[in-house]
């Protein structure tokens, strides 16, 4: 009887255990699915851009350059892994694998036993994920974006190290401590702050058991941190302050820095078992799981970087890379407050679809500044593409080289150097970049495809409609310029072909510079049999407002004339109320008049 009861209890325990494991697996499965969707789908363009903004070459020189810095080996490996984000789902899968390992290590280190406390071990991962996806416009800056991988990998290595130290210390405490201290200090060279961090995890893990040991571990952590940093700064000739926490992201990049810090703190809390015990004492499993799930979604929803324009720009850059102009136009359709970059990509698409004159003004007129405190970041969001696809290949090259130098080398710009060299027929330069790109994992085949054009660069242009236009519209006249915007540069030519002249007229008008537009228009008498409607509108309005009637020089259509008269009449009621006027006269949106009157004055020059 007793035996039977014991069996029963044991069976129930096993069922409970089984159900607990099954629930945990289900929860982890859900989390994995969620993380995969969040990274591989919602942040797919972001991951793709991250790898495009990074560089990894399989050569000795590159390896030396990257490895010879504090935490260099970790950066090198992280850059290697980051390449896999070329296929965002694959990249997301690798990142999520890291999450699982990180969670597993936290479960092991915190000795979590209950389902709730085990699930809670995924909490730091949540903040790691938010930190990884929060770079925002910092990815256009010189930030070491392999942080996205190195942060996760570094934490994982730290936890594994802590686990190893604990195992060794169980065998021989003294030897374990010496090993922990020595390894953590020396590892500062290869993995940076994550070496000594393992001692900090060890210290917080010991707090509840033995405060003295915890203090000792903490003291070792501080010593290892400073000793390791001194060693690395001496070897690599760096400042001590810079070596201390490398390769953790710079505090200039506040958002990923702060969320990363929260992740680090939660990792320590988990390792110390603080949250686990709290949870086990205060809350039931179901409540805690529910709270955790709600909290996770809330964190991801509120804390993730969700700037719509930033995401649109990423998408547009990707579409432009594949010269999918229809895709670009489709993507910008839903944009309500575009940035200059978005407007510029739309202009490129319209230009290459020969729709510039017809559709240019059919776009929201209120522009938004990009969400970045660093001046000149906006240049990186579109300048190399904009100048390149508008046939100013040399100037695209100039801006690309500026960005390459000031904000970091990357695949994207190296490919631009190659394209520009081939279009300009500079095959020796093109070969250099082909040889280097052939050393990459995912861009090698792209480079090999370009090898065939080295002997005949003309074919490169002939085989591609977009490049054909880029090459055809390259200005024949060479002018010397400084750092002006494209419209101003187009205005500097004395001798422009019809396609470039039309760009000059339209972009001038788009930038609300009517005087310059009219001045240019007088030089373009032979360019049009009949002016595009957007230009007709302007000269009609100009004739109505001033004594200068250009409609005698450039004939206008009756329909356009009537539209302008009607617009002018309606607009006069809102002379001092542009905000109200913009709403009331929305039916005229798409006309150059509406753009001129209500256009955002912050668009100075594209």
């Amino acid at each position: 009887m007793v035996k039977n009861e014991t069996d029963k209890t044991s069976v129930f325990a096993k069922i409970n255990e089984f159900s607990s494991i099954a629930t945990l697996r289900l929860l982890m499965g859900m989390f994995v699915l969620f993380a995969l969707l969040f990274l591989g789908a919602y942040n797919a363009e972001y991951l793709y851009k991250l790898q495009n903004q990074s560089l990894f070459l399989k050569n000795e020189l590159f390896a030396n350059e990257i490895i010879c810095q504090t935490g260099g080996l970790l950066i090198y490996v992280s850059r290697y892994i980051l390449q896999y984000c070329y296929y965002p789902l694959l990249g997301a899968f690798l990142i999520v694998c890291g999450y699982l390992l990180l969670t597993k290590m936290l479960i092991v280190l915190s000795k979590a036993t209950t389902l709730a406390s085990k699930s809670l071990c995924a909490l730091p991962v949540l903040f790691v994920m938010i930190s990884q996806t929060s770079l925002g416009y910092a990815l256009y800056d010189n930030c070491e974006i392999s942080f996205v991988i190195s942060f996760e990998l570094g934490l994982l290595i730290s936890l594994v190290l802590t686990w190893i130290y604990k195992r060794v210390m169980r065998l021989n405490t003294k030897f374990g401590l010496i090993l922990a201290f020595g390894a953590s200090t020396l590892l500062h060279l290869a993995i940076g702050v994550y070496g000594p961090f393992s001692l900090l995890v060890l210290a917080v893990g010991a707090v509840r058991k033995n405060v003295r040991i915890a203090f000792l571990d903490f003291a070792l952590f501080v010593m290892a941190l400073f000793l390791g940093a001194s060693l690395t700064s001496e070897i690599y000739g760096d400042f001590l302050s810079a070596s201390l926490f490398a390769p953790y992201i710079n505090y200039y990049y506040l958002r990923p820095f702060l969320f990363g810090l929260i992740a680090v703190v939660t990792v320590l809390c988990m390792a110390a078992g603080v949250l686990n015990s709290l949870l086990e004492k205060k809350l039931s499993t179901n409540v805690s799981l529910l709270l955790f799930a709600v909290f996770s979604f809330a964190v991801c929803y509120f804390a993730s970087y969700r700037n719509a324009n930033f995401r649109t720009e990423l998408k547009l850059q990707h579409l432009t890379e594949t010269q999918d102009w229809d895709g670009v136009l489709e993507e910008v359709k839903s944009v309500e407050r575009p940035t200059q970059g978005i407007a510029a990509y739309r202009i490129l698409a319209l230009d290459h679809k020969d729709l510039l004159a017809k559709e240019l003004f059919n776009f929201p007129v209120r522009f938004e500044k990009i969400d970045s405190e660093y001046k000149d970041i906006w240049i990186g969001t579109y300048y190399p593409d904009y100048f390149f696809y508008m046939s100013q290949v040399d100037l695209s090259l100039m801006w690309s080289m500026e960005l390459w130098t000031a904000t970091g080398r990357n695949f994207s710009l190296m490919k631009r150097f190659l394209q520009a060299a081939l279009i300009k027929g500079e095959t020796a330069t093109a070969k250099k970049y082909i040889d280097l790109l052939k050393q990459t994992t995912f861009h090698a085949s792209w480079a090999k495809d370009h090898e065939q054009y080295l002997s005949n660069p003309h074919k490169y242009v002939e085989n591609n409609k977009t490049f054909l236009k880029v090459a055809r519209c390259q200005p024949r006249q060479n002018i010397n310029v400084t750092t002006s915007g494209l419209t101003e540069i187009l205005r500097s030519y004395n001798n422009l072909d019809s396609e470039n002249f039309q760009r000059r007229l339209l972009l001038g008008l788009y930038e609300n510079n009517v005087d310059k537009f009219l001045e240019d228009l007088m030089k373009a008498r032979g360019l049009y049999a009949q002016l595009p409607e957007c230009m007709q509108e302007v000269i009609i309005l100009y004739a109505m407002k001033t004594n200068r009637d250009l409609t005698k020089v450039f004939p206008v259509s009756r329909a356009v004339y009537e539209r302008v008269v009607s617009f002018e009449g309606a607009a006069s009621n809102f002379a001092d109320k542009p905000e109200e006027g913009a709403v009331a006269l929305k039916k005229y949106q798409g006309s150059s008049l509406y753009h001129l009157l209500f256009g955002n004055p912050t668009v100075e020059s594209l």
Partner: protein
Amino acid sequence: MRMNKLLKYVVASVMCSMALSSCTPHFPESSYDTQTRPDISPDFQNVTVPVNISPTNFYLKGDWEAAALKISGEKGETIEVIGDSKNNFVIDVPSWKKLLANNVGGTLSFDVYAKKEGRWLHFEPFNETVSPDSIDRYLTYRLIEPSYMGTGLIGVFQSDLETGETQSIFENKFFHRDPHVRTQKCVNCHTAQRNHPENKMFYFRGPNGGLILTYNGQVKKINTRTKEMFAGTVYPAWHPNLPYIAFSSNVIKQCFSSNDKNKVEPFDFYSDLVLYDIEKNTISPIQNTRLKQETNPNWSPDGKYLYYNVSDSVFTVCNNYRHLLYDIYRIPFNVDSLSWGEPELVYAAAKDKRSATYPRVSPDGKFLVFTGALYGTSTQTNRTADLYIMNLETKEVRNMTEVNSPTESDSYHDWSSESRWLVVSSRRGDGNYSRPYFAHIDEEGKSGKPLPIPHSYPRYDDDLLKNYNVVEFSSAPVVKTYADFLSVIQKDEIKANSGFPENTSVEPDGITGATSPRTR
């Protein structure tokens, strides 16, 4: 049982090592002559090498199953090298040194073999001539991306030409992390007294920057700009014997071409010459003119003349820079009275609608080498730039066609201490990245095909995405460390005293917005 296990390990190890050795490529016993030259990089074919140069490691281009190299000295000694998986030939340094020592004045023959579809092919051999004239052991240079405006990761480096190893002297990477100042932290204008780094200088620009001067064992940070100067000091030239550094003080601008082979043009709006007296910490004028531009000073080996280039062209807008033509002048310097004489014309280029810059007199005083181009002064990016040599006795000038590349820029240059080697930075490789080449100069001033810089890793320059800038010989390694330089950079600067006449002032220039000097 244990013996059994051990035996198994031994057998396995032997089998593994046998398998490995069977995979190791052997030197070909027979081969087919291809009658073609091997396509190698760097191109060391038929060059003259100094007796003390490091191995001229190279790699064989193309897809090959294996590659091998046999180097035979005319006067004896042979080296056999098996190419690695990427067909790199890395020559053993001691064997190479022995080979060179035994073949001074003779030639080395390079037989390159490549394996394709199981068959060994033998390319036409090429030669390297071993010159008895040794080269200065070190080459210092700046590595900089071919950028235009912002400052990237820049550093001054030193290559050991006898071993092929490279060492960093100073880099700006520590400051490059800060997005607020990174584009201003340039490292430039390095030079040493008589190619010896005991007395050496470089500039660290931007906030907290200054002239980082190593002199008599001490490192200091100096601000050489005084109130009479319209710009800071650049392009230094250290007096060969005395504690003086001549500089030019320039307002430098840049122009970008919208569609041209020369994509960027750096040029000066204003430039004058000044002298920095290290011991007195004083800056004084050498040439302080309103309507002339003087720049690129360089001392004669006896220190009695300062060579420089001068332009009469003063212009105000970017488009005019192609009219900026320079002649070469020199000005006598009396080392006893420390006074300057009257400037003398050395080479008139402007009258022929050309420009001559970077005058460098050979240490034996026989030759003057300068860069000639269709226009301008900073000719690194100018594809018309070539080296010219003037025999200072006969005044005869000729284009160094044997050294110059046909289409790319051959620009900055420096003489070795013994006047037998000239280093030139040239963009002949790919048109975009400059690399140093060494040309042997004989007693008559004649030369031959120049030698690319050898590296222990043969693909170093092919993989490098930076320019070699301001290449200069050095007879010894740099004496100060990173830490020395960093600690000085963190300290306050020492302000140089003014040695300008009291009535010198700087007035804003109404035309350009720049400031210009005028002596009342």
